[in-house]
């Protein structure tokens, strides 16, 4: 081990690898990891850590010895801070840009340096506070990197956009997170994105911890289809069921009844708008005013479905069979309002506010 280009890596890797020389299993089924018959390699650097040799008397507890030194290394704190960033945002911290000819190099460099400064500051606090990982989570969550959720003014300037490129939390929910969110909103999971149905979970960018170990960060066409299935199916399961309950026991539609028809009176429209605002809060986590543009769009959707239905001939007066099959004492839907509310719920669940964090 003398070639310079080899030594540069091996002087670190070999020494750490040597710490594991006595880490093996007796079980024959794990024979691959058995003790090396000819003894440890003699043509590589000996066990140790960054220039410090492992004392012979410490060999019996080599990994503990390594652990102590690893934790003392300043890079350990930085690595942990970077890992927490990944856990919170779903993406790795920025790396220094390499392409010096890139016209956006300076902007990317600024973005990297700014984030790196914050990383190191959090790491310093982490070390100073006795390596309590909670402090790292708190510091990241309190930072602009996590909290920023918009711009005051639009920018088309490529340089500024490059600087802001990694700012803000915009993370598509993983299948398990979608299930938990559904449980929080509707009181029950969908059950098709969880561990019980690996097919859809895998399709929705989930991991199996074997062949697929990285979650999908962006939706594919297939995932777009699952989002449509999800929104259709959940709205189908929950809308009629909620209306079938006494108003005081409803989760979604406690402040509205199916006989309140849009356009029938200002009071009716106001009630519908209030119900929509409540749905926005529950499903999207948005606190929209009843006269906001957001509520206007949902109101218009609801009203137009009801109006369209009035123009149709031969429509069933009940919800479709699949949606009412498991609802005892299901109310009828003579004005098509329950199905229109189902349409609104479907619409909301296909939105970014619902599907992303």
């Amino acid at each position, binding site marked *: 081990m003398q070639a310079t280009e080899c030594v540069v890596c091996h002087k670190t890797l070999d020494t750490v690898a040597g710490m594991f020389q006595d880490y093996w299993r007796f079980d024959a089924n794990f*024979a*691959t990891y*058995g003790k090396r*018959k000819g003894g440890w390699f003699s043509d590589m650097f000996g066990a140790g850590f960054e220039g410090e040799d492992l004392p012979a008397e410490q060999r019996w507890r080599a990994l503990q010895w390594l652990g102590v030194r690893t934790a003392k290394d300043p890079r350990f704190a930085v690595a942990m801070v970077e890992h927490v960033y990944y856990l919170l945002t779903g993406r790795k911290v920025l790396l220094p840009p390499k392409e010096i000819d890139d016209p956006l190099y300076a902007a990317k460099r600024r973005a990297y340096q700014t984030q790196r400064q914050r990383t190191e500051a959090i790491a310093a606090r982490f070390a100073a506070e006795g390596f309590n990982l909670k402090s790292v989570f708190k510091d990241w969550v309190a930072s602009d990197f996590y909290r*920023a959720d*918009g*711009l*005051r*003014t*639009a920018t088309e300037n490529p340089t500024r*956009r490059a600087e*802001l*490129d990694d*700012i*803000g939390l*915009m993370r*598509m929910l993983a299948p398990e997170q979608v299930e938990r969110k559904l449980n929080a909103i509707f009181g029950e999971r969908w059950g098709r994105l969880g561990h019980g149905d690996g*097919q*859809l979970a*895998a*399709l929705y960018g989930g991991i199996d911890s074997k*062949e*697929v170990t990285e979650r*999908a*960060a*962006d*939706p*594919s*066409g*297939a*995932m*777009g*289809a*699952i*989002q*449509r*299935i999800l929104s*259709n*199916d959940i709205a*189908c399961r929950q809308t009629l069921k909620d209306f079938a309950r006494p108003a005081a026991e409803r989760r979604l539609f406690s402040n509205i009844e199916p006989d309140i028809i849009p356009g029938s009176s200002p009071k009716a429209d106001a009630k519908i708008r209030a119900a929509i605002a409540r749905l926005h809060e529950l499903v999207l986590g948005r606190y929209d005013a009843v006269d906001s*543009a957001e509520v206007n*769009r949902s109101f*218009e*959707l609801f009203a137009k*479905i009801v109006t*369209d*239905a009035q123009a*149709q001939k031969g*429509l069933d007066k009940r919800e479709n069979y699949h949606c009412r099959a498991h609802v005892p004492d299901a109310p009828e839907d003579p004005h098509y309002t329950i*199905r*229109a509310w*189902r*349409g609104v719920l*479907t*619409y909301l669940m*296909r*939105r*970014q506010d619902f*599907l*992303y964090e």
Partner: protein
Amino acid sequence: MRRVFLKLCGLAGLGLAMPFRFSNLLRAESKDNGYEGPFYVVLNASGGWDTTYLMDPKGIDGINRLFEAGDIQTRGNHKFAPTEKHKSGGMSNEEFYANFGDELLVLNGLDYSVNNHSPGARYMATGKLNSLAYPTFAALVAACQGPTCPLSFLTFGNYSATGNLVAMSRVPYLPSLKKLANADAIEGNERSPYHDRFALDRIERALLTEHEATAADPRLPRVERAENMLYAAQVNSKALECIAPHIPSSIPKERLAQQVEITLASFKAGVCVSANLTIGQFDSHANNDRDQMLLIPEFLAGIAYLMRRAEELKIRDQLVVILQSEMGRTPTYNNNNNNNGNGKDHWSVGSIMFLGKGIKGDRVIGATDEKQFQVAVDPQTLACEKEKGIRVRPEHIHTALREFAGIADHEYSKKFPLGVPDKDKLKGLWG
């Protein structure tokens, strides 16, 4: 249906609203049949295949216990290991070469450079060893040639990084494909829609209105990108309806055959450019000959199934097939107490094979010597040239693949350069 989809895309104003990689949606989908080829299939023998039991037989010095040098078979310019007597299922080498030897291009003596699984798989998939950012060839070609196809890049495992150029789609089971194809119908049954047609139309229009309204607001680049991708994913997903007619009624049992059916249905529907297929367990440390004689025939049978079904679907002439593994196996059987001396460990020299559209077959390029070390190749003549040749590595293969696919000068390819100088490019690799 395609026209309905295009109309919807037009309504959606995707050219304005989508991020740059979706901006050419209408151009890419301008044909009524969607993406029509070439279709790229990368088949991975995951875990490390023993090339001496397939396209680079030795039969000397104890490298192969199942045959001697005199038993080696030939077909045209190919030499291959005899496996007919040793397989218990799948397809033997004899059958495989009889069926496909004339169109098969083999490159032996590929320098994987590493003998660890993860870096090896990454290197073989991307042509870049020391970066986690590079896309696989399958992802890159999908991004360049069909960025808006809803299942542009399908993968069933193995290293599948996309370089953030294109979404990765995992559709591991056929029934899942049917549900996806009819997402607005209960359990994929198109006769049982969730919403009445007029209500669904209203929902789609409301989503479009919402999308346009938010696009006008000042947003962080990351938020803007995510919103565009989400909207594009949902709109593009409607094109999956084209797949339904091509989904077979019965599901094959074999691992690769299931992946093949999903892949070919997606190709046929014009919604997919490339697929990364894989079967694992080639890592035969414990019992090399037994494991390789199970897996190589299974792998070859999967390739034969792919070609046969593609023929039936009338898209075989558009297939480009790449057969690879992330490493080879040692020329010696391991000799320690734990492995009983029957296994073979990792070896950083191996082979890769190609067949399909635009590839001249019945050719073998490169070689390994009697100790299974790489023999260098003259990149200009592709002849073995021990003294002055180059060590052919994955970046040489990927450079050639990019040129073959016509994407070498694409902005995405330039974003992920492979750094092979012109003098080292494999001239005439494809014939």
